[in-house]
C-alpha cells in the first residue's frame, strides 16, 4: 500500500457564522455569502469557467435548463453554449468525450444526472480515464471531474438513491470525493477541477438544500442556519486527501462522509457518547493520518456509510484501522451501513441507517 499521507492543510473547524471575511495564506480576504450546496457547486463552476478557459461543463439537461437539480443554472447564458452545453443521454458518451477533451488539454466537468446512471460509463471510467496516465507513461492524462448526485432520503427508489462510491474507490487511478456541506463542496470541486487526475465527485443530494440528520419527520433545516453554509464568493480550495474533524471527541472515532456526517452527529448527541466525527471528504486517496491519530486517541472506532454494507468502502476503512491501530483498539471496529438490498422506495426509512441505528452501533463500539 503506498497511499500518500497528507495531513489536513486547513482548519478543520468551519468558519463560524457571522465571520464575514475569510482569508487563507497568500490570498486577500474574501466576502462570504450564505449558499445552499447547489449554489456553492454552481459558484465553483462559475469561478473556474471564469478563471480557466479550458474548463467546460456539460451533461444531460445541464445547458439551457441548468440541470435537473439546477446546479448549472445560468452558466450557459453567461459562458455560451460551447463551454456549457446539453449532451445526448449517453453516459458512456459523456465520459468518453470528456476523456478526449482532457487529452486535448481541456478540463471537462461533466454531470452524470444521478450516480445511479453512471454504469453505462463504466468502461470509459475504469478502463480509460483511470488508466490513461499509466498506460501512456504520462503522455496523456484525463483531468476530468465527474459530478454526480448520490444517496437517498428523497423517496427516489432504487434508481435515484444509490451510493456507489465503493465501485470507484476500488479503481486505481481514480480520486473519489464526497463533500458534506456547501463550504467543502465548493472548495473540493475547485480542487477537483484543478487536479490532473480523474475525480469522481459524489454529491449527497439529500444535503443539497440543508443538513439532514436522518430525522425525516422533522422540518428541513436550511443551510442558511448552518455555519458551513457560509461560503466565500470567489476562488478557494479545500485540499484533496484531507479529512476534517467535524466534531472533536474523546470516546469513539467515527469515520464517515456525506449525509452520514450529520446522522452520526445526531447519534452522538442522542447516545451521549463523546464521539470524534471525522468527515473523510476525500474517500480515496485518503487522509490516513487524521484517522490514525484519532483512533489512537480514542481506542474505539465506528464506520458509518449509507451504501450497502458488504464489500462497501467501510470494509477498506475497517481494514486500514486494523492495520494501523490494532494495538490501540479496545473493542472491535463497528460498521453501520445500508442493508444489503437494493434501495427500496416505500421502506426508505427502514433501509436508511438513521440516528437510532447509528447510535446502536456506537453503543456496541463502546462495549467491552
Amino acid at each position, binding site marked *: 500500500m503506498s497511499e500518500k499521507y497528507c495531513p489536513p492543510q486547513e482548519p478543520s473547524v468551519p468558519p463560524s457564522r457571522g465571520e464575514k471575511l475569510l482569508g487563507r495564506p497568500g490570498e486577500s480576504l474574501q466576502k462570504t455569502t450564505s449558499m445552499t450546496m447547489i449554489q456553492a457547486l454552481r459558484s465553483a463552476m462559475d469561478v473556474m469557467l471564469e478563471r480557466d478557459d479550458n474548463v467546460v461543463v456539460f451533461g*444531460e*439537461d445541464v*445547458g*439551457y*435548463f441548468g440541470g*435537473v437539480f439546477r446546479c448549472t443554472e445560468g452558466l450557459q447564458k453567461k459562458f455560451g*453554449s*460551447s463551454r456549457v*452545453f*446539453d*449532451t*445526448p*443521454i*449517453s*453516459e*458512456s*458518451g459523456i465520459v468518453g468525450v470528456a476523456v478526449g477533451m482532457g487529452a486535448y488539454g481541456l478540463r471537462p466537468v461533466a454531470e452524470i444526472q444521478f450516480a*445511479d*446512471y453512471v*454504469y*453505462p460509463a463504466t468502461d470509459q471510467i475504469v478502463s480509460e480515464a483511470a488508466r490513461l496516465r499509466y498506460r501512456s507513461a504520462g503522455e496523456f492524462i484525463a483531468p476530468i471531474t465527474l459530478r454526480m448526485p448520490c444517496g437517498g432520503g428523497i*423517496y*427516489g*427508489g*432504487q*434508481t*435515484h438513491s444509490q451510493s456507489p462510491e465503493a465501485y470507484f474507490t476500488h479503481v486505481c487511478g481514480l480520486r473519489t470525493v464526497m463533500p458534506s456541506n456547501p463550504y467543502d463542496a465548493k472548495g473540493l470541486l475547485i480542487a477537483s477541477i484543478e487536479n490532473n487526475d480523474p475525480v469522481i465527485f459524489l454529491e449527497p443530494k439529500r444535503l443539497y438544500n440543508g443538513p439532514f440528520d436522518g430525522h425525516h419527520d422533522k422540518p428541513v433545516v436550511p443551510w442558511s442556519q448552518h455555519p458551513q453554509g457560509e461560503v466565500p464568493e470567489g476562488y478557494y480550495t479545500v485540499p484533496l486527501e484531507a479529512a476534517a474533524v467535524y466534531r472533536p471527541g474523546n470516546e469513539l472515532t467515527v469515520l464517515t462522509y456525506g449525509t452520514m456526517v450529520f446522522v452520526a452527529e445526531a447519534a452522538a448527541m442522542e447516545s451521549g457518547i463523546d464521539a470524534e466525527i471525522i468527515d473523510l471528504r476525500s474517500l480515496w486517496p485518503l487522509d490516513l493520518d487524521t484517522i490514525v491519530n484519532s483512533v489512537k486517541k480514542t481506542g474505539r472506532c465506528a464506520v458509518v456509510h449509507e451504501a450497502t*454494507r*458488504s464489500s462497501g468502502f467501510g470494509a477498506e476503512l475497517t481494514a486500514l484501522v486494523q492495520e494501523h491501530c490494532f494495538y490501540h483498539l479496545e473493542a472491535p471496529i463497528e460498521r453501520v451501513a445500508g*442493508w*444489503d*438490498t*437494493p434501495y*427500496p*422506495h*416505500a*421502506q426508505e426509512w*427502514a*433501509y436508511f441507517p438513521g440516528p437510532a441505528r447509528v447510535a446502536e452501533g456506537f453503543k456496541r463500539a463502546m462495549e467491552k
Partner: protein
Amino acid sequence: MSKNAPACTPLRLHVPEPTGRPGQHTDFSYLHVTPAGATRRPPVDTQPAAIGDLAFALVRVLDADGNAVGPWAPQITPERLRFGLRAMLKTRIFDARMLIAQRQKKISFYMQCLGEEAISVAHALALDEGDMCFPTYRQQGLLMAREVPLVELICQLLSNQRDPLKGRQLPVLYSVRKAGFFSISGNLATQVVQAVGWGMAAAIKGDTKIASAWIGDGSTAEADFHTALVFAHVYRAPVIINVVNNQWAISTFQAIAGGEGTTFAARGIGSGIASLRVDGNDFLAVYAASRWAAERARCNLGPTLIEWVTYRAGGHSTSDDPTKYRPADDWKNFPLGDPLERLKQHLINIGAWSEEEHQSVQKELEAEVAAALKEAESYGSLADGHVHSAAEMFEDVYEEMPEHLRRQRQELGV
C-alpha cells in the same frame, strides 16, 4: 500550421437548438409533415434496403377531416376502433386523476403520457396474446388496452400494502407479466436489447410470439439502443423497436439526441433493419404500421424499427416544469394534433361514435377511475404508512435468503 489547413475560419462547436424557446413560437417545419395517404406501403417481405425512403417519409392515414385515406388505411372493425378510443380516453382520464392524486400528496411521483396515447393503445391492438412488451414509463396505454385492473395499478402508485411490487419501485415503474408487460427499469434503454433477447429466445424455441421494445427519442443515444439494432439485425430477431419521438427528453430537444437533419427511423437503415417513420398521433396509422411490423416479425422476416412522431404534451414527470424550456402553448401548435380528437372525429364520420356517446363514456370512465382510486386508497398508501412491511425489503434479493440478509433482518428487528 499544417499545410493541409484550408483558408477558412477557426473550428467552432455546433450545439443544436430547438426552433422555439419560452415566449417564442416553435417552427415545426423541421418535422417535414406530408399529407395523409401520400406514403407508399410496400409488401411485408420487402428487403429493408429497398425501403430506405420510408425512414424519411411519414406514414399517415387520417386526413385533416378525419377520413382514412391511402395505402396504409387498415382493415379494422369499427368495434375495435371504439375499443381503442375508449382505452385512449381511459388512459388520459387515469393520468389526469393520478396527477391530481400526486398533487394531493397521495402518490409520491407520477408520469403521464398525455398526447401519446394512440401509440401504445393502437400498438397493443396490433399485437397478439403472449407477445411481450418491453416498455418505458410512458406506455401505460398498453396496460389500459390489455385491461389490467385499475386498482392493481393504483396500489403500485400508492406503494401500499397491496402494491404487487411490494413498494420497491417508484410509482409508474410497473411490472405486469400476465399482460405481457416487462418490469420497467429506471435505467434508460436497457430494455431494448433485452427485448431482442426475448425475441431470439422465441426463435430458438420455435415459438410464435414476438417482442416489442419501447424507447424515447432521448434514450436512443444510449449504447444499448445501438447494440440492440445490431443484435436484432444479425439474428433477424422477431422484434419491433418502437422509438417514441415526442420531441423532448426532459428539457432536452430531440436534436441533441441526434434528430437534427435526419430521423430516428434512419438509425435503422445503417443496421439493415426495415424502418418506418409514422404519425404517432394517428391511431389508424399506428395500428397499420404495427400490424405490418408484427407480420414481418412473425413470418421470420426480421425486426422493424418504427419512429412514432408525437409530442410530449405534459411535463416530463411531476418534478418537471416544461414552461422553463419550451413555449407553453407548443402542443396546441403541434401539426399532428391530438390523437384522441382525431380518432373520435373519424369514428363520428363513419357513424360509429357521437358527441353524446363520448360524453357518457367519459363520465363512465371518470367514475370507474375514481372508484378504483377510492378502493386502492382503502388499502393504504405511502403517505399514511400502510406499506409492505420492512421485513419484505429483504426478500427477492436472492431466491433463497442468504444468512447475511437473515442477520440484517434480525438486526432491524422485523
